[in-house]
């Protein structure tokens, strides 16, 4: 097990926050937060809500978020919908194909912890945090578009503290 320096990259990194790169990091993070391209991993009802969030009324484009269909060109992976056992390996491979600094938003209670199908269903995976590290959980079934945009704001708060060569905060954020 490599000793995690937190930034997810295998570079041998120092442990404390980096003063030298602070101001540059702030500027780079401004760039990242204003151009957060998301991979639309839409499976079920939350997928329709994610699509309606991207449309004309709750326009994610005005926040600079473009829907991308290829994992290589995406920064954040929004897992929207129920993940069954058959689908689980795809979530993992798509996450691994994404380019570094990547983040994950788990949208909807199905992705958070199995949602309405967690008790009696034999085929639904209870929560995608068994597969990939999740940064933001957005509750709701399906969550309203405003809740999803609130989730992206919380993620932006985390990205503003992201340091290329420092500790990466991996503790999950839950939107009330």
């Amino acid at each position, binding site marked *: 097990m490599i000793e995690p320096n937190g930034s997810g990259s295998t570079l041998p990194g120092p442990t404390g926050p980096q003063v030298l790169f602070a101001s540059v990091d702030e500027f780079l993070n401004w760039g990242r937060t204003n151009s957060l391209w998301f991979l639309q991993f839409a499976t079920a009802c939350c997928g329709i809500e994610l699509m309606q969030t991207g449309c004309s009324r709750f326009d994610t484009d005005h926040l600079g978020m473009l829907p991308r269909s290829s994992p290589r060109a995406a920064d954040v992976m929004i897992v929207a919908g129920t993940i069954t*056992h*058959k689908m*689980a*390996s795809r979530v993992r491979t798509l996450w691994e194909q994404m380019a570094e600094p990547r983040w994950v938003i788990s949208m909807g209670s199905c992705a958070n*912890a*199995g949602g309405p199908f*967690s*008790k*009696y269903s*034999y*085929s639904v*995976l*209870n*929560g995608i945090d*068994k*597969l990939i590290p999740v940064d933001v959980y957005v509750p709701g079934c399906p969550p309203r578009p405003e809740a999803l945009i609130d989730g992206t704001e919380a993620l932006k708060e985390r990205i503003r503290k992201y340091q290329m060569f420092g500790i990466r905060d991996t503790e999950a954020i839950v939107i009330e």
Partner: protein
Amino acid sequence: MKNDELFGLLQVLYPDVSSTVAETGEIQWQVPTGIFLEVARTLKDDPRFAFDSLMCLSGLDLSKYPTAVKGEFVGELLACVYHLHSFEHGHEVCVSVTVPKDETASIPSVEPIWLVAGYFEREILDLYGIAFPGNHDPRRLMMPEDWIGHPLRKDYQYPSNYSTWELKREGQNFTSGPYA
């Protein structure tokens, strides 16, 4: 055409076809598996029946189904219920085939007759374990390939893990319903 007149016609052709009436008024024609294929063929081709559309094909696990006598069950049986509809005459009918609930459970596939049956049968093969010889692609439809057991059976025990991840979340007891 009334249901019992239709049944009369079929009775003439195939004597050992029986018909039961449930409390909800649903009339089910019970057809033994041996002659089921020819019965299905005549239901489709015979101009008097002309059932050209298979509306719905559902599997049924009768092992826990209560008989008329209180407190006693039908016995280890699986059933396939075919709901047929005729566009020409406009009448609908419900045919069911019962099979013992073990590895040898198999019903001849009606895919050559009603082409939609292919997917219905694959689903019942996957969720109930009834084999359908003659189906063009007899693979599991819903569950992953390496899944063990047939989930929709009444006595199905939920698995505790699948491939690499553990299914139960901490502090959650996994029940598979009052019948398990």
